[in-house]
């Protein structure tokens, strides 16, 4: 039975194994490869997308649970927080290899949407699930603070 869900505002009907993680639905069924595979066990955050605005790990979210869901991916995320995050990321040249950055940006955008002026502790709490093997963390932190400023101004 196909599963109907909305991704970045577009409705899709997906006919695949109901146990398929959303990550592989995005990457393989829909050819949306901005969402990355890093661990497959909800330990790295590379696959972070938004489900009704909340950050989730798409590698541990299964197709069968998504009927009627509204998903936003890195390809579609927009709005004030996302724009501020992208601008700050560019201004500080945050990415190195960049492979984790889709997930970082999705997590940071969700954080700033909820908490427009996050403290360092807020950042640690919201971003600790997002691994960056290039260790761009210092710039991620600075860019989140910068994005918060941009949202104010």
């Amino acid at each position: 039975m196909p599963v109907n869900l909305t991704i970045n505002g577009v409705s899709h009907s997906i006919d695949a194994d109901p146990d398929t993680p959303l990550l592989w639905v995005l990457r393989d069924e829909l050819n949306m490869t901005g969402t990355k595979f890093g661990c497959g066990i909800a330990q790295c955050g590379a696959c972070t997308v938004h489900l009704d605005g909340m950050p989730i790990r798409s590698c541990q979210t299964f197709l069968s649970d998504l009927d009627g869901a509204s998903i936003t991916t890195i390809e579609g995320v927009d709005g004030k927080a996302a724009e501020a995050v992208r601008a700050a990321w560019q201004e500080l040249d945050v990415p190195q290899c960049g492979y984790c950055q889709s997930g970082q940006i999705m997590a940071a955008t969700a954080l700033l949407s909820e908490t427009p002026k996050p403290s360092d502790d807020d950042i640690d709490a919201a971003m600790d699930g997002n691994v960056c093997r290039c260790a761009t963390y210092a710039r991620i932190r600075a860019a989140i603070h910068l994005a918060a400023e941009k949202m104010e101004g």
Partner: protein
Amino acid sequence: MLHHLMKPIANAAPSRRSFLKLSAGAAGGLLIGLRLPGASGAAMAAEGELAQPFVHIRADNTVTVIVKHLDKGQGAATGLATLVADELDATHEQVRVEFAPADAERYKNLFFGVQGTGGSTAIANSFQQYRTAGATAKAMLVAAAAKAWGVPAAEIAVSKGELSHASGRKASFGEMAGLAAAESLPESPRLKTPEEWVFIGKSFPRLDTKMKTVGAPGVYGIDHKAENMLVAVVAHPPKFGAKPKTVDAAAAREVPGVVDVLTLPAGVAVLADKTWPAIRARELLEITWDETEAETRGSEEMLAELQAMAARPGLKAHVHGDAEAGLAGAATVIEAEYSFPFLAHAPMEPLDVTILFDGGTAEFWTGSQLQTVDQNVAAAVLGITPDKVAINTLWAGGSFGRRAQPDSHPIDEAAHIAKAWAGAGNTPRPIKVVWTREDDIKGGYYRPMVAHKVRAGIDAEGNITGWQHRVASKSILIGSPFEAFLVKDGVDETTAEGITDMTYAAGAIDVEVHNAQTAVPVLWWRSVGHTHTAYVVETMIDRLAKAAGKDPVAFREGLLKDDPRKLGVLRLAAEKAGWNDPLPEGRHRGVAVHKSFNTYVAEVAEISFRDDGTVKVEKVTCAVDCGVPVNPDNIRAQMEGGIGYGLGAILRNEITMTDGEVDQSNFDAYLPLRISDMPQIEVHVVPSTEAPTGAGEPGTPPIGPAVANAIAAAKGEWITALPLSKQGLA
């Protein structure tokens, strides 16, 4: 890594003669010799374009720099573009990058003689070459404009992507590109003096940032898609060196989407139309393994063997003076044993290779780090010649050494899959081989496990009188194609690098190595031997300082009189960290300084302890001298990343084995550094006119010993077995 390949490997290059010529500095002749318009995809010239091996100016006024190195996050693409853009006087906005095809003749690393990236050499080996390429293109644009406008070339100014003359005539690069293509190549285009640089040493933001903030869809190897493509995952043996004996694939073949199951020399591949069915089906394979040649020991037994080796005399790696006599005459002798675990690189993007093999030619899409070796390995498996192997180098999601394998094993595996697929009479299809994180963590090619035994003595004034040092480890290079060049009398020069070239004044030094044998494959890991040698040397220096009753910085200063650059970064880091200022309650400092890949880095770590006794690294002050700082912000980024990478390893990382099987499989057990672990980092880049050296690796070695020295400042004890989590400190 790989800097070790500099001269000797020229012998293995496809064209030894051209390597020698190029490395002799004949950069002016380089483009002439290599100018083969239209011969390769990277330099396909259309009407109205100027296409050269390293620079392609199109009529739309874009300047595309052809990047011969893999960019796995270290910024090589932007770095090479900076060099071209500066000489060309292009604007940042008009510059694009494109990876070069596999073609060692044109795109070899001038230090290796083969095409490849590593050893923090991307900028160092390209500095003259890419600036010359930019200057050449500019000279041709100027010559074309001079002709078109009927004015002397010397009167034409070039600035910010525009050619202009006092008469008021102006042209963009794009407008002049077609005419420039008809100009002859300048003999030796004039390179700018450092005072004329507009981007080098100043600012040239990364060209890949923007795409990486929108998901960079399709740019990494793992994102590669092709029509009719299959995805393969491979069941690797649970013990290193084992081979498949019997395979029952009945259940796996039942999974919808599975297309075939192929038995390989060292694994079993499941091929499916998509990734998920392949991953699922692999779990259903029933395989028995032939473990005749497998490593069946646990890591504790392996470590015990290394420690026993380090207790005995070994192969001489470096001898200066009579260390034994120096130690005998010492007032104080410090003796210590150290151990370091296997480490996985765990790049964020796991390994992947896409291959299309049609029986006569093969094409690959992957983050290739040693293109020439990859071509040779693929050709050998497929029974074709290396020139029939094309490689499309894609952006890579990290490497840290993992993608540069002397045996090109992922390429080898993909080639075996494609060969078996073709051998079964199938029509050719692109096959993407994907490694999961479990494959990565369990898959070997680790930083070797290492044991050190060291004795060092000082006299009553605190002078080092003798230093005796043994390192036991599996060699990275013995058994690899590089053995003939980089292993002398059984000594792999990476095993004890950082000790053999130590510049602390020591009356006498004696360094020995032991080569352990194991089927566990080992590999260079961001800064190679320096990952452990810097730790031992720099903590030993602190121990000697304490024994001499001296401050760690002052003690080092006294021993570094003949190494002004090392002394320079040490003093700069100490000054910026406020080394002599009192620390707040509960804070402790440690320092370390180390040269690797001809770059000097000093780091001061400031730590505290959490309530549970674990270490929190609060702040790291870093000073780096890598010669001309081509792209200072990227150098800062590489120091930040290198510090974080090294810190993650010393805090909690170790690969252990029980009866030959790896105990960790993913980030739930191989715990990566997270944002809450990240210290505040301050990087100071030393202004310099020395030839530029690397930045990718040298930030990593000093952080471990700097933190260990800070812990010792607090507790009086130096940690000699890593990671710190084993000691309850992380």
